[in-house]
């Protein structure tokens, strides 16, 4: 499966079932997650990074100075589909 780091935009193809946050493919993450504990959401950006952008609130890909928590990524899904059989009440033709 393919992933992209939101901070540096580098792309990686990882084996199936790999937790992409457990693997380094760029140097944007500190996998120990030890800057603000185990949960990045525990960071108080106002106190820890005054005037800077931070992971918290969600979706912020830019890591502020002094922050080592893992950066958000993009998961690129790929799927093959088949037509499902018509069946009343389950999504068949009406």
């Amino acid at each position, binding site marked *: 499966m393919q992933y992209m780091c939101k901070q540096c935009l580098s792309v990686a193809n990882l084996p199936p079932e790999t937790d992409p946050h457990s693997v380094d493919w760029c140097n944007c993450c500190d996998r120990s997650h030890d800057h603000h504990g185990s949960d990045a959401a525990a960071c108080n950006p106002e106190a820890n990074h005054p005037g800077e952008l931070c992971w918290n609130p969600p979706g912020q890909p830019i890591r502020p100075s002094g922050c080592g928590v893992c950066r958000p990524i993009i998961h690129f899904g790929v*799927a093959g589909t*088949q037509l*499902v059989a018509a069946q009343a009440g389950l999504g068949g033709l009406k």
Partner: protein
Amino acid sequence: MTDTGRIANVFNFWFAGGSAVSTPTTPFKLRLMTAMGSGNGNVAGSNGTELTSATGYTAGGSSLGSSPTFSTFSSASPAAVTNSNAVSWSAGSTWTTVVGIEIWDSTGTPARYLQGTTTSSITGVVNGDTVQFAAGSISANPSAW
């Protein structure tokens, strides 16, 4: 394998006085599934389990965009076609692993049309991540029906 369930409805409408086959209401919606249902080919099946308790994902799925949903099917040379528009979600929490997708229409009582597994489960989605199906990433191969 031909899906005889849907084809039978069309043939009954044409030749046997069956009810008119209604046009699906667009846009089609892409749903993320944590467990697959059944119903491929000739097998009348059941819906899968949709992703829940996932901030950033809305039950019922997200639009696959304005028509056409897929590239044009060819009767002369059946081959897989793919989605025309990208769909993405911004995760605001940790998500359960996604193992597949379903594609539904937008009627008042939505109908399921397509389902399939992802080539790899979408796992490890956390707050701040984006889950995206790019244009061309969802295939539908009528020659396999």
